[in-house]
């Protein structure tokens, strides 16, 4: 089982002819992802790793009935490309680029809501349904099938943790990178809900960090709606507090956002918080063993 994507998901790559686009097209293909087409204006008719390239996302979707897209487009042009994908009918949109302006991200999310599409990212490594399909840039070898669902705000830290799991012989159902920006499409709650519904997911790892209130919101949701065991790791314990401009941030966060507040909220929700990445696999083993 898998959430969001599986081996039947038909994927297009926007910006397929670029350095990263072409490299990761190869990586995704070798993972088994069903990449059906690429898009690169001015390069229609070419092929990358055997994948046909089209002028526009419309053309690619029209000719190959795609339902997901991954974007390798420079940040200043990402909003336009995201609109294009959504308008062409894409329902799962993975935004790899960093540094997309926040207002552009808000515009994208508003449009995706109109189109009933799921946006992953921006500034994400993507998502992977282990063993069947990956739409993202994560290293292939760590993502092997197993009973654990993982959702993470950060990328490399997530690989680190999934890597530890792999070393312990524990695989994953689906791993979702929410993305590191202030405005991202999926929140912990969205993914937790999917994991709760997914029969293959037995336990869940939540990888968070300081700042914002996503972890506290997740904790409240876990209390009310998640029956499966959840283990968390949070980065940023040692970080010095930043200087704040104005009061709006504090008003929005209402005392949330610190390492302590997050740990406390998660503990109250029955979530075990590991103090080192290496401590995650033992906690997961306990959870899987029903301890």
């Amino acid at each position, binding site marked *: 089982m898998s959430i969001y994507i599986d081996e039947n998901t038909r994927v297009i790559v926007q910006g397929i002819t670029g350095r*990263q686009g072409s490299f990761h097209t190869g990586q995704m293909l070798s993972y088994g992802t069903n990449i059906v087409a690429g898009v690169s204006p001015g390069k229609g008719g070419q092929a990358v790793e055997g994948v046909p390239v089209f002028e526009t996302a419309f053309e690619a979707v029209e000719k190959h009935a795609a339902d997901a897209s991954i974007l390798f487009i420079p940040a*200043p042009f990402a909003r336009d490309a995201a609109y294009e994908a959504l308008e062409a009918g894409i329902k799962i949109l993975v935004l790899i680029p*960093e*540094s*997309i*302006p*926040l*207002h*552009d991200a*808000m*515009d994208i*999310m*508003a*449009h995706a809501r*109109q189109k009933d599409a799921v946006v992953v990212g921006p500034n994400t*490594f993507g998502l992977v349904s282990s063993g069947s399909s990956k739409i993202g*840039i*994560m*290293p292939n070898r760590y993502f092997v099938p197993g009973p654990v669902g993982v959702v*993470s*705000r*950060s*990328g*490399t*830290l*997530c*690989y*680190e943790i999934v*890597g530890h799991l792999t070393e312990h012989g524990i695989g994953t159902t689906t791993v979702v990178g929410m993305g*590191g920006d*202030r*405005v*991202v*499409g999926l929140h912990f709650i969205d993914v937790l809900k999917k994991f709760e519904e997914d029969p293959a997911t037995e336990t869940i790892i939540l*990888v968070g*960090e*300081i700042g*914002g*209130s996503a972890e506290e*919101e997740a904790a409240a949701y876990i209390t009310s709606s998640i029956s499966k065991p959840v283990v968390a*790791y949070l*980065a*940023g*314990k*040692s*970080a*010095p507090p930043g*200087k704040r*401009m*104005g*009061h*709006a*941030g*504090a*008003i*929005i966060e*209402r005392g949330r956002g610190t390492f302590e507040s997050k740990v406390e909220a998660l503990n109250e929700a029955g979530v075990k918080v590991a103090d*080192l*990445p*290496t401590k995650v696999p033992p906690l997961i083993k306990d959870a899987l063993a029903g301890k």
Partner: protein
Amino acid sequence: MKLYEHLGKELFARYDIPVPRSKLIESADQATGAVDELGEVVIKSQVLSGKRGKAGGIGFASSPDEAKKEAARIFDLEIDGLTTEKVLIEEKIKIEQELYLALTIDGSAHRPVVLASLDGGMDVEDVPEERMIRYPVDVTIGMQGYVIREICRRMGVTGDLRKELLKLLPKLYKMFRELDAELAEINPLALTPDGLIAADAKVTIDDDALYRHPDLPRISEKTALELKAEELDLAYVELGGDIAVMANGAGITMATLDMVQHYGGEPANFLDFGGGADLEKTSKSLELLLGTDPKVLLINIFGGITRCDVVAEAFVQVKQNKGIDLPVSFRLVGTNEAEGKQILEKEGIKTFASMDEAVRHAVQLSSES
């Protein structure tokens, strides 16, 4: 990018949002003329901190002497660890009521959010939830009249004050959207006999959108080293310890620092050289770190979009060209790991597969040296 109050107010004025008449000075001597020009005045330190008021960074004067004395006092003040470079002298406006009004981004809602309260002023964070109105704005239609009427209804505002807000909020929203602001806060928004006046301005512009605002000033709170890092497009923060840390990705960099501290070490910095950096950027990152003269260098690479062979090559290049003669703890796994290791092994450099081991080794090295 945070803007000083006086710059925020310049932008307000550009969007036709009323602000007090004012004069910007760089030394206390310049304060004397202000009273003649503006009458009774308020004297305000221009620091990028939300704690200015409580720290005594605001004074009042009704004579030139008093103005000079107050300005001198404020120039000498350290606020939230910051020094005062400039002081803004403003006409004292007749405040009947202090409101709070802000636009910021609510990540949970994916939307801009209006924060508004009739209880503006210094202790606004403590205003009870029901007296602080939040309204997320739909960006596809923008700041419509109905949004403002509903905010007013929830605040219990009617009549002239509502009319004033119906004029003001669309201007603030226009500025917020057009200038890619993360924050546009007015606290207090002063109700005066002449209508609403922005008595303060806290404006933050999204760094990632600065490229489309060439007309905005560039303000930095960074140290010289951090500025140099910024030029290289690196996320770098000085921390003061002796173990220089270089990793790829904000989350894992944070986790590395946490782990250094966990094992009793002191990180010298936060340096995330990002995902997928090329040879040059990686070398420059290394050189920057070496320039800070740390006792130990800890490199923690988990390659996804970042390729291990590129990092290894950069390391060798820097070693050969500039020399690396401090103890190094090097962790290298992920994309093209085998190639990376091979490159390093040729130079006699060993790597760890485990982050935990690499960090413990680095802490060990720092305590030995």
